[in-house]
């Protein structure tokens, strides 16, 4: 598996990508916070945010189809949670408001994630005095996700090639066994990674 599957678009070249990470983080936070405090009578704020986000999407050369697909992925959760608001007085306005606020915040976050490299995000977090242990674990995780996805696929291929397709009850046992062995292999890999880190002069 290629590592690029994580955040393909964060390596594009565009004026938005060239901006420093902190400015994009601040802008995203501003959009998200203004969405959180916006009440139904503030609907012009939502329109302004939508226009702003559309402009950023256009400038950043991120395909609009990609943005829409990512939005649709999370939208069911948003709608289900928002449906609960319908049982309140003035529920319909609140429902529309919640969906709109949530969608716009989500679009802002997707744009931030896809215009900023994770290494820049980590650098930003370090400057915000996030503990170094947390940063190390974050960096390791970002680096190793695709390695372990490959490992899981190898386990799955080995299982499928040695067995018929199991019944649902048995397949739980087998998938769980796969997960367990994935952890065993992760811990073995962690030991090798530690040796490699030490060989390169890493200090905790």
């Amino acid at each position, binding site marked *: 598996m290629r590592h690029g599957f994580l955040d393909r678009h964060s390596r594009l070249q565009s004026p938005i990508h060239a901006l420093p990470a902190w400015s994009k983080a601040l802008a995203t936070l501003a959009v998200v916070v203004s969405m959180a405090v916006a009440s139904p009578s503030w609907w012009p704020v939502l329109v302004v945010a939508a226009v702003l986000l559309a402009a950023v999407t256009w400038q950043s050369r991120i395909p609009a189809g990609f943005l829409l697909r990512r939005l649709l992925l999370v939208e069911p959760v948003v709608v289900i949670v928002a449906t609960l608001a319908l049982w309140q007085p003035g529920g319909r306005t609140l429902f529309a408001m919640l969906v709109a606020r949530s969608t716009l915040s989500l679009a802002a976050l997707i744009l931030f994630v896809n215009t900023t490299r994770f290494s820049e995000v980590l650098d930003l977090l370090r400057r915000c005095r996030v503990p170094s242990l947390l940063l190390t674990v974050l960096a390791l995780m970002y680096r190793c996700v695709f390695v372990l996805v490959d490992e899981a696929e190898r386990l799955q291929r080995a299982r499928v090639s040695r067995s018929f397709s199991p019944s649902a009850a048995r397949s739980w046992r087998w998938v769980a066994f796969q997960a367990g062995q994935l952890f065993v292999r992760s811990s073995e890999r962690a030991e090798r990674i*530690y040796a490699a880190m030490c060989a390169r002069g890493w200090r905790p």
Partner: protein
Amino acid sequence: MHIPDGFLSLQTAAAAAAVSAVTVGVCVRRLRRTLQPRQVPLLGLTATFVFVAQMLNFPVAGGTSGHLLGATLVAVLLGPAAAVLVITTVLVVQCLVFADGGLLALGANVLNMAVIGGLAGGGLHLLVRRFGSGLRGTVTAAAFASWCSVVLAATACAIQLALSGAAPARLVLPAMAGVHAVIGLGEAVITALVLVSIGTTRPELVGGVETPTSRRPALAPRGLLVVLALVALAVPFGSSLPDGLQWVVGQLGLEHRAVVTAGAPLADYLVPGLDSSLLATALAGLAGAGLMLGVSCLLGRLLVPGKRARAEG
């Protein structure tokens, strides 16, 4: 259970973020004292493992499928403090790489899944493990603890939504707790199966990374108490705000003076707030926990054969 942005009010999000930041800070400080350097990569790889294991599908009836959540599993494998750190990392990557779960809601998500999931799961596991010995005890306790941690996390999530005025408490609380009582059952079975898989092949991997010191068991029970206190404190508040914004408007308006002169505003809200449906939910939760303890014992017996059975077989 990832709360997206736009649902939580600024106050709720800020309060949750503050609690999460403090707890994660305490856990990091504790780990820095007790963790050996060679275990740092293990934390990173475990976070990756949780992320990848969440992609493995467990088929449920009707073409749907569930997946592992993992907080309790990590708490059992590495210890509660490490679990908080690991699940926090998973949530941060899900938020900042995949835009899954809101940015402003990150604090609330960390509180629900990492802090409550890890500390409640780990704490309950340590408490219940005393009922059995060896792998069977671990598996039984882990199954019970993972069910409880999922239900507690869902309850906390429902309370935050209710406090933000995004959903009425008497609806969202039973709904979230009820749905997650079922999801928790799946999580309990998966956690137990995965632990059996690890425990039978590499038994030394089960049991925590923190070096055993005299202070070691202190964190988990204390953390569990904090979690239970948080939930218990928040329940009446959440239920006394049936429709957040309207309530605030009402308080700032005419009723304001009356409440202040009454002198005991809380007494006014606590009793009508804890109406029969919430009380019923709480009782159902307790009954469910009791039932789950039995199911866990059964699961432990089923999955881990006793010494006698192993000698015969």
